[in-house]
Structure formats: C-alpha cells, structure tokens
C-alpha cells in the first residue's frame, strides 16, 4: 500500500506537489478560523499561535517520542485545543475588538515564550525529521483537508453550528433562547485551535524546519485574509480563499520584488470590489440549480 502510494506521488511534479500541500494545509487552517470568526463571529488575530503550538508539539513528538504520524497529529491538535479552551474561558467574555487584541497579545506571548524556551531550541528553530508514516505526507495532507471540510460542514449544519451562528447574529437573543454562550464560544475556540494544531503539525513536517518567528502576527493575518476573502462563514469560500491566497505568492513570483507590493494592493482591491468575499452571499446549491435550468 505504502509503496504504491509512494510510487504515485513520485510521478507528480514536485513543484505542483508542494503547492497542493500548501493549499491543503491552508484549507485546514482557514476552516479552523472560520469556525471561530466566520460561524461564531469572534474575531481572532492569533490563529497562528495555535498553529505554532501544534507545530512544535508535533515536531517534538517526532523527535523525542518517535510517535506514528497519525497519533502525533492528533496529539498536536489536542494540546492546541486544550490551550485554546484554557485561554478561551477568561478572554471570551470580552467584547468585539477587545477580544481581538487579546488573541493578538496571546499570540505574541506564545511566540516570545517559544523563542526563549530551551525545549524549542530558542530562536534557532527546530529541524523536523520526516514523519513516521507509511502513507506519504502529501496524501496525509489531502486526507486531513478533506476530513476537515467534511467535519466543518457537519458542524455548520448541526444543532451546535446553528447555536454558533445564533451567537454571531445576536448574543442576547441567543442567550434568551437558552444557548449557553460561554460554553459554545469555548467549544468553537477549541475546535478552531484543534484544526490549527493539526495544520501546524502538517506544516512542520512538510517544511522540515520551524522557527517561532514564522508564526507571528502576519501568519494570523494571512489566515484571516483567506476566510474574509472567501466569505465569512462560507465553507467553499474558505477553501477557495485558502487556495487563492496560499498560491498567490507563486502566481506573483514573476514580479519578483514587486510581489508583496502587488499582494497588498490586491487585498485592498478585492475587498473594495467584493466586500463580502468571493463566495459571500453565494449559495452553491442554488448556483448549480440555476446552471442546470
């Protein structure tokens, strides 16, 4: 099984393979943030912190414990989710932008702590050995991305997901309908952190090297950009936003030095012309139906 898959992967162009892995990881990260910010309406500017917790947990689990990759990723997700729930309890009481700055502050603190920790090799960063898994990494990434899409779709259409969306629309109305706001918020935060942790674990092993500085403010913003660009709360939107923004630096590679300049300008223009995101207000089912008729 493993050899066959290895052989298949070996036939694919490595450049294309790397891009598809990047897209897969971005999809997982974006979906996680979409649960927190898109569905529950809690602006988080510190998603990369959970990603870094997952990345370092997973890297250390491979280096020190030699865990198989699937257990390793679950552990990364679980520790990240536990941290998310732990800090979620006190800070989710805060309203709107106070919450946003707190998540940002938390992310900066996590970054600085990792930069000073002996275990994470301080500012030098960690080299991550290849994962212990028979299945090649790209396929693990695609499977995980697929699972994440299915899981978040289920969440969105479940009783739990409707409760989250009710909180987004109006907290007081939701509370008077018997929704325990604090609990649901913490749960959504933990789910978002879990996906970020898994994404971080995949990121660490796909890149082979991680440094705490890679998970700074700009990384969080990158992920936020994906879900806003795709359309908040929309799952196809998150997927498309993740695909577009994670490949944008590749598309723009021919511009060399102008790349980030154009990227910044592009963000502004996309927001002005599609303020609700590419897929905002677009219902996929109805779109398909209107094409058929």
């Amino acid at each position: 099984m493993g050899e066959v898959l290895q052989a298949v992967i070996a036939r694919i162009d490595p450049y294309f393979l790397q891009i598809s892995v990047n897209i897969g990881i971005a999809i997982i990260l974006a979906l996680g943030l979409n649960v927190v910010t898109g569905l529950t309406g809690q602006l988080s500017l510190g998603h990369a912190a959970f990603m870094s917790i997952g990345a370092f947990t997973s890297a250390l689990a491979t280096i020190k414990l030699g865990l198989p990759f699937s257990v390793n990723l679950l552990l990364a997700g679980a520790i990240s989710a536990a941290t998310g729930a732990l800090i979620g309890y006190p800070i989710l009481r805060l309203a709107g932008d106070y919450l946003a700055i707190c998540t940002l502050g938390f992310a900066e603190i996590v970054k600085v702590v990792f930069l000073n920790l002996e275990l994470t090799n301080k500012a030098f960063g960690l080299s991550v050995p290849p994962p212990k898994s028979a299945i090649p990494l790209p396929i693990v990434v695609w499977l995980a991305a697929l699972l994440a899409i299915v899981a978040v779709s289920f969440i969105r259409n479940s009783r739990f997901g409707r409760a989250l969306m009710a909180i987004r629309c109006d907290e007081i109305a939701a509370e008077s309908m018997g929704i325990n706001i604090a609990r649901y918020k913490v749960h959504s935060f933990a789910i978002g952190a879990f996906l970020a942790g898994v994404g971080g674990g995949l990121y660490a092993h796909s890149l082979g090297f991680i440094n705490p500085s890679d998970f700074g403010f700009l990384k969080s913003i990158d992920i936020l950009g994906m879900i806003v660009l795709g359309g908040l709360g929309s799952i196809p939107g998150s997927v498309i936003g993740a695909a577009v923004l994670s490949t944008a630096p590749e598309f723009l590679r021919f511009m060399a030095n102008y790349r980030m300049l154009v990227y910044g300008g592009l963000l502004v223009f996309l927001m002005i012309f599609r303020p609700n995101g590419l897929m905002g207000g677009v219902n996929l089912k109805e779109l398909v139906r209107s094409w058929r008729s």
Partner: protein
Amino acid sequence: MLQRTMLQSTKGRAMMLQQLINGVALGATYALIALGYTMVYGIISLINFAHGEIFMVGAFVGLLMVATFKVNFFVAMLIAMLVCMALGVLIEWVAYRPLRKSSRLSALISAIGVSIFLSSLAQMIFGADAKGFPDSAFTMRRIHIGAADISTLQLLIIGVSACLMLALEFIVRKTRIGKAMRATSEDYNTAALMGINVNMIISFTFALGSALAAAGGVLVGLLFNSVSFNMGLMAGLKAFAAAVLGGIGSIPGAMLGGLLLGITEVFTVAAGYSSYRDAIAFAILVLVLMVRPTGLLGRKIQKKV
C-alpha cells in the same frame, strides 16, 4: 534581592529616575502612535492597521529631510507630519471610504493590505537594512540630575510629545471642528443629521492621527538611531495595545496606556528580562482586560436588548 539592595542606595534611586525617564520617553512615543488608533477607532470603529506604516513613513521622510536636504530637525519633523497627513487622508479615501457601509472585517483586511503595500514599498525604495540619522541631526548632550544621567534627546522627546498632546487636547476640546469630532464619535448618524460634514471630519481625524504618528516616527528613529521598513509592525501593535489598555476611543486613555507600556517595558529590560520585552506589553494588556474588560479609562459597553 539585588534590586532591593540597589534601591536602598542613592545610586539605586538615581538609576530608578534614569529608567523612569527612559520609560516616559519611550512611552510618550507609544502614546503618540496610540492616539491615532484611538481617534480613528472612536469615529469609524476601524482598527487602522496601516497606522504603524504611517509611523514608519514619517520616520523615513524625516530621515530623508535631515540626511539629504540637510534641513533643521524640527523642520524635518514638520515636513514629515505634513506628508503623513496627506498620506493618511489618501489611504482613508482609497481604501476605507468605499468600504464604510460593508462589514468591519472587510475594512480591516483592506487596512492590512495597505499596511503590506506600504512596508514593501518602503523596502523597495530604501532597501532592507536599517538606516540611522546623521550625527549632525541632533547634538545630544547629557545632563546630570543628582546621579542620574539623562540625555537631552530624551527630554526633547518628552517635551515634543507633551506639546503635541496638549495641542491635540486643545483641538478636540476647544475648537469647533473638535466639537464636531466628538459629536461624530458619539453618534455617527445623529451627527450627520445635525449638519456635520461627517466625511470631512473623518478625513480630518485621519490627518491628525497621521501627523502624530509621523512625529512619533521621527522621534523613535532618532531615539534608537534606526529607521527600517519593518519598524511599523511591532511599534504599531504595541501602540494599539496601549490604546486598548487605556480604553479604545478614549484620548486620555491612549496617553495613559502608552506611558504605562513604555515604563513597564523599560523596567522589564532593566530587570534583565530583555528577551521578553515584546511580550510584556501584551501580558499587561491581557491581565488588565481580565479585570477591566474595556480598558483603564474606557466607557462601559452597555448591553441593549
């Protein structure tokens, strides 16, 4: 233990005074930047992430004036303020005004787009390495108060910041346009109904905030003798933290928050935890928000049904 024994001696007291002045000087620059965040937030509820880059542009314009055109330091600061005023108004006009009716997150992403655009533009024009002011920019002398060793540069920073903040207080409290600003931040729609030209007020707010950030940029550039394309990011985040710490939307809150962060940061470094200096601002912020969820001087958010 070491600190305690040091505190007891006179040398320790002088050391405290010196660090305090360091902290106030740093905090004053944070406060200058934080004011722009808080004013813009007060009026259109937007976290203007491009504000840190305006601070960076201000520093570069000041450097350019002093190093290339050999103008006086104060003139350079004035020119930087004027350039950034125009830049702030332009950014609002291009990137935020079309989004005023759409969700706040879209405007936030647009602000981040502007921020990435400006910092990469600065990197292209001025290169990736940090630049320093020429020595002739400001002849620094050291003053001794007791055993404390204080540079005139720090006094200059504190003085200039205090003057600018007083001027801002005057504009906001005593002038007609300041009254209109306060009215707009109180209630945007009602202010418009009362015949206030809201668009003009928003442009004016951006101009004021940007001018203060530019002044902060020139002063910080001089203080650390380093101007670089990415100086706006961390300074912007910390200033934003200062604004939230004081209670976002509140002008005295931004000043208080900035000073508090500056002083704590300097004392953290003095106590030997310099590698944690970037985290301390945020740790204080998170702790304060636990106790006072709307910042030190922020208004309580009333929940309405």
